[in-house]
């Protein structure tokens, strides 16, 4: 059976709203508002904790239900205004990991009013060949909003100014890491299973060290946790036609299941559950290459006496830059895999010791 991967117009609009919402770490309010608009009619209760995590429990009706946390982070990488040099020109810092080489010439949105600006750099006319060999350091870059009269103050935030768009089989936009995961979690809330208590956790401050997830897991004390994130895909052919052995994940090959990254050794029982569910349901999946990096699972699994955890990611090219690229099919398959996996959870899933 060949599955088709279509998004309804409504789903596309949700993805667009989520991608274009401005929500760097520590200032996730716009994203939270988009989520609340979507889920309000499906939930009876929600909680926004001290750090800003949006925590929603949907209780099932079966007996002996496990408490299953599913987490996706609302925040994105971006910038914070550090000082004004006058005439609407600002020094700034990066929030989260950003490759400074990516910045010169990029369009940004600054402050609560989404004031457009640009990260300026000297034009090619006025640079020498040797200038162009060296990276411009962050302390020589400025955000220029073009006018001296403005309400922008140090501490205000900025994000890449990128319009979300659907391009054939792909989705392009900023902050796909992890608004795609957020969208998956919204779908799970709308179709919550009866066999478990779903603890949907939209977390804050993942990009600066999974700080929100840590307190969310502590307060929700789930029996187990899934994290839905986006992992980089470095799947282009190698420049010298050698076999690419360090792709991390590949676009179009389905949700990427984690065995290990720099922060978590996934619980083998949950890895098996995901793989077996995918195989049973005919959903493609890939194993994310073991390596570095980390997701919210890194702090969740160590909380409150230990929480068996695993991550599933939607592969995305060009993560943490102005324009990410992901496949619709990977997004849809991740929704399907997570729905099927949650539905297949039995109360005795963790009765056997970890192995």
């Amino acid at each position, binding site marked *: 059976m060949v599955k088709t991967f279509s998004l309804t117009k409504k789903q596309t609009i949700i993805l667009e709203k989520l991608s274009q919402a401005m929500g760097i770490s520590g200032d996730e309010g716009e994203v939270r508002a988009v989520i609340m608009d979507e889920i309000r009619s499906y939930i009876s209760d929600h909680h926004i904790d001290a750090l800003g995590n949006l925590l929603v429990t949907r209780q099932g009706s079966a007996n002996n239900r496990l408490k299953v946390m599913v987490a996706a982070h609302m925040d994105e990488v971006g910038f914070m205004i550090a000082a004004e040099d006058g005439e609407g020109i600002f020094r700034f810092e990066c929030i989260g990991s950003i490759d400074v080489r990516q910045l010169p010439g990029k369009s940004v949105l600054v402050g609560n009013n989404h004031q457009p600006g640009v990260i300026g750099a000297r034009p090619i006319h006025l640079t020498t060949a040797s200038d162009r060999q060296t990276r411009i350091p962050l302390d020589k870059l400025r955000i220029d909003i073009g006018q001296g009269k403005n309400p922008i103050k140090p501490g205000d935030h900025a994000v890449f100014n990128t319009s979300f768009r659907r391009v054939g089989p792909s989705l392009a936009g900023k902050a796909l890491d992890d608004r795609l995961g957020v969208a998956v979690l919204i779908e799970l809330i709308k179709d919550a299973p009866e066999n478990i208590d779903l603890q949907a956790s939209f977390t804050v401050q993942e990009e600066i060290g999974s700080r929100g997830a840590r307190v969310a897991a502590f307060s929700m004390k789930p029996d187990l946790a899934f994290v839905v994130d986006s992992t980089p895909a470095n799947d282009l052919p190698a420049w010298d036609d050698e076999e690419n052995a360090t792709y991390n994940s590949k676009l179009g090959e389905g949700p990427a299941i984690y065995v290990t990254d720099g922060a978590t*050794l996934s619980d083998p029982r949950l890895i098996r559950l995901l793989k077996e569910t995918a195989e049973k349901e005919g959903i493609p999946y890939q194993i994310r290459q073991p390596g570095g990096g980390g997701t919210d699972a890194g702090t969740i699994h160590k909380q409150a*006496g230990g929480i068996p955890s695993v991550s599933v990611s939607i592969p995305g090219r060009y993560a943490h830059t102005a324009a990410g690229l992901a496949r619709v099919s990977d997004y849809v398959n991740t929704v399907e895999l997570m729905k099927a996996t949650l539905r297949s959870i039995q109360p005795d899933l963790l009765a056997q010791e*970890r192995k």
Partner: protein
Amino acid sequence: MKSLIQKLTETFSPSGYEQDIRQVIRAEVEPYADEVRIDPLGNLIARKGKVGKNGRRIMLAGHMDEIGLIASHIDENGFIRFTAIGGVMPHTLLGGRVNFVNGVPGVIGGERIMDIGKTLSISQLFIDVGASSPKNCPIQIGDVASFDRPFFDMGHRMVAKSMDDRIGCAVMIETIKSLKSSPHELYFTFTTQEEVGLRGAVASAFGIDPELGLSLDVTGTGDTPKSRKMDVKLGNGPAIKIKDGGMLSDPRVVQWMIRTAEKEKIPFQREILESGTTDATVIQLTHSGVPVGCLSIPCRYIHSPSEMVDTNDVENAIKLLTALMSAPIRL
């Protein structure tokens, strides 16, 4: 004792995949414990005793995981690229043998050496399991391997892989067996995932909520040619840790350990370790804070195929730990 150490060090259990070593240790400690449980991260917790008069709730932690490798890519000719679990040093790998958790053996090969003076990095190494394509390769991405490095006994010295920290586990196992009576509620905790960042201890310490914590682990030595500067020598007794790369031991705990060793006439060394740390680091920060210390077993060539400990040091560590746990503690 030596046969126990051989059994422990020849069991394969990299971080996150501790099921085999957990079974071996469980069989050893269960007859001597009042209660044995396994927590969500796979830590094995054996409780002995209840808090008696002048007693405390004490967590003893030795980690049962070891460093290992994990497959990250099967290339078009069936060679397995891999990455490390824990602090694997690439110069110890080339030519070594591994066993995957599913029982498949392999050897570690490397790309062409262009400069004999330079170590190949992990990304230049691969595992050969005799396959010729991804299709006939019995290993999948994400499969875990550990090192095939047999134990051998040199008399007053013992050599094996994973002395770090199966020797700490052995000291705890022998202590639970030899302990006659104790005023304390003792949690012999065989932790998981230490080598990737003390993760098992974070979870188990939270669950135990101890009033005092001690880790049992190996420490480096400064007694080999041009080694690091360090005042610990093999054979001079177990080491009482004062400081390492992640922890300052509680001075009261250090003094109690020294007093006890002196009283029992057990040789010991004072340990300052510049880099590296143990489970005690995270036990210290549990709940509202816990006084901690660490009893170290000096070990040469840590994280190499041949980790070496001194038999007398091990025996003295067991004596000291038994003495420490046998009497009330004044801090």
